[in-house]
């Protein structure tokens, strides 16, 4: 029988000796090369963290492989980052290059630090979720293959943090990322009255719609949807399987850019939509990868050093962003929900292009 409420493992028993000894004593760090962080302690101790790209969806074999390396090079400890990269914690400088070589041997990339693109925070997609408008792991693989050079090198103006969410629930931080890839549905739910009648709390189903598009349908003991009001968020489907939202022909991907969460220099910002829809084109989503590359490289070519995507766009103005990237602007990009007012240009000063 399981012990209830014993809580997570104690981190104290899962950190390497060098961290036990230097816990809270770190003085500064350097970033000698992509994927390698050197942290120096008051005690003089030096810790090398080797950041490794992971597919995040891994097999036990993968975990055992990295454990093996951690035993060999890191006194039997490792960690994962908030972006699902693996970090090997090396206390002996001499072991850094050999570890990197060993990682290369099993095909694991080292990078993602500093002014680079790190791993993409992502979600389940077709692998495990019931509401996705696109896949997660596949799109991430395609995009990271394409932008690989920016993971293993630090040649960008600043860090670039990407997220992918496969539906509007937006698991992950898509709403505040430098670049976000979001799965979107584009057709109203198809109602299965049968399913709905099966013990649905009609009032709460009606209430769950952000735009009030759902009304009760007493005749059917079910609901009906005012399609003119529906913007396909899928919240009703999350609530109730009878509101089928998946539509392979019309589901796809939207691109948002310019979000951030750190407070450095500028306040946190939301990501904002610049491409409302790109068709799902597995297995490599070429239209998505090239759209992403275009945005990343336009930013890289024009931003000042240290300027995050959103900071660059806010400086030059969104109108200029569309000119430089050649992305087409349309009414779909103009907010029409609750907080639209703050997005309207309530001023006469703007650039023509």
């Amino acid at each position, binding site marked *: *029988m*399981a012990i209830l409420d014993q809580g*997570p493992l104690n*981190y104290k028993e899962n950190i390497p000796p060098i961290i036990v000894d230097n816990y809270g004593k770190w003085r500064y760090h350097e970033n000698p090369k992509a994927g390698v962080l050197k942290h120096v302690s008051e005690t003089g101790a030096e810790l090398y963290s080797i950041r490794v790209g992971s597919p995040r969806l*891994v097999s036990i074999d993968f975990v055992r492989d990295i454990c*093996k390396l951690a035993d060999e090079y890191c006194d039997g400890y490792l960690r994962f980052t908030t972006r699902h990269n693996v970090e090997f914690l090396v206390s002996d400088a001499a072991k850094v290059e050999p570890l990197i070589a060993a990682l290369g041997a099993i095909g694991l990339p080292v990078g993602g630090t500093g002014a680079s693109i790190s791993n993409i925070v992502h979600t389940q997609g*077709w692998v495990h979720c019931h509401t996705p408008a696109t896949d997660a792991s596949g799109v991430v693989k395609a995009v990271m293959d394409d932008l690989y050079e920016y993971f293993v090198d630090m040649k960008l103006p600043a860090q670039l943090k990407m997220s992918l969410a496969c539906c509007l629930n937006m698991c992950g931080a898509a709403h505040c990322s430098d670049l976000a890839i979001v799965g979107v549905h584009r057709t109203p739910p198809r109602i299965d009255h049968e399913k709905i009648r099966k013990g649905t709390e009609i009032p709460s189903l009606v209430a769950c719609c952000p735009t009030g598009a759902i009304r009760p349908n007493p005749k059917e003991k079910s609901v009906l949807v005012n399609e003119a009001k529906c913007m396909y968020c899928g*919240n009703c489907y999350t609530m109730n399987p009878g509101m089928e939202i998946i539509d392979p022909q019309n589901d796809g991907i939207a691109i948002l850019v310019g*979000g951030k969460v*750190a407070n450095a220099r500028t306040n946190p910002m939301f990501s904002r939509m610049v491409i409302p829809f790109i068709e799902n084109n597995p297995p490599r989503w070429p239209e998505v990868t090239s759209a992403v590359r275009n945005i990343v490289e336009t930013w890289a070519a024009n931003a000042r050093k240290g300027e995050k995507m959103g900071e660059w766009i806010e400086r030059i103005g969104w109108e200029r962003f569309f000119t430089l990237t050649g992305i087409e602007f349309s009414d779909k990009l103009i907010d029409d929900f609750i907080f639209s007012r703050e997005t309207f240009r309530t001023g006469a000063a703007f650039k023509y292009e």
Partner: protein
Amino acid sequence: MADKKTPQLDELQNGQWPSFVTEIKRAAVKNEASKDLLHLLERSYEEKRGHWKHGGIVGVKGYGGGVIGRYTDLPEDYPHLQAFHTVRINAPSGWFYSTDSLRKICDIWEKRGSGLMNLHGATGDAILLGTTTDQLQPIFDELSEEGFDLGGSGSDLRSPSCCVGPARCEHACYDTLEACYNITNAFQDELHRPMWPYKSKIKFSGCANDCTASIARADCAVIGTWRDSLIIDPEEVKKYAASGMNIQHVCDGCPTDALKYNAETQELSVIAKDCSRCMHCINRMPKAITPGKDRGATILIGGKSTIVQSAFMGWVIVPFMKMEEADDFEEFKDVITRIWEWWDENGKTRERIGETIYRLGMSKFLTEVGLPAVPQMVYRPRANPYVFWPEDEIKK
């Protein structure tokens, strides 16, 4: 359907980024469910749609959360995916593992599940991806045996997470790992037994760089800061200058114009009361500039993603709070408990705390939770004159 081809997925084994397809195939060698998953996924790639149904209520004894039920809508074709549930393991602070700990998970999962997992889920749990209903309890029992516990799911406290903090970062203004561990243990009931209007998340970041993206992803963000002045080491400043760094450029990036550099004397100074502790200069010159000595955290409320009312970022409700292991993080626990109680009373079903406050107003929230209103809570005051006046401030 062992030998059915998977051309689309195979393509995703090419390229330099490590492939999740390769991982699924590795698991498929040992596990039938993983093999079915491979083919189901290939089918999804052909049809451009997922094949999973809503999860029914499955779980383990004593808990309401920790498991996400999943069933394919094509059980005939993929019998081993008829049930393919997720088990969420609450990960250790900072996602630090001894290889022993990880291997224990692998051993249990090899025996009782697909052998596939997410390290980690976006909330921070170690996700065991895919097992059958009958295996859930045994898995939990064995994990528990080895000292693990499940994470949150449903309308409960989701597994809190934290940045690497003092374990490996010179910027940490409080002990994020201990705070996360201590506070997670203090709220085990809230974490394992859904009883709220909706989910609630806490993330701990050691400084304003917010490496856990807490402001965007947590209903309650705990972001390290300090109350006195940041500390400048004149010697190190001179070394940076000698190294050819453009220190004036660092000052130019200061949002409050609080950082001043004198190029002649190579002296760097700060107007402490103007500094907003954004971390910019410290990030650029970690050897020369460090956070102040009187450290603690800023507490923000309301972060969440899009559904339903729009995405909210957390906003300040306590500008500065001490976060000390010494006093068992008492003040934080006290405040967050009052907040949850208020939300529990006032929140509608599937309404995150941020949406509840937005609907009812900060004034009601602050008054009833007992927090003083201060200008740090807002970028700017209200533009509309729609002020509510309580009975007792009105002349009768």
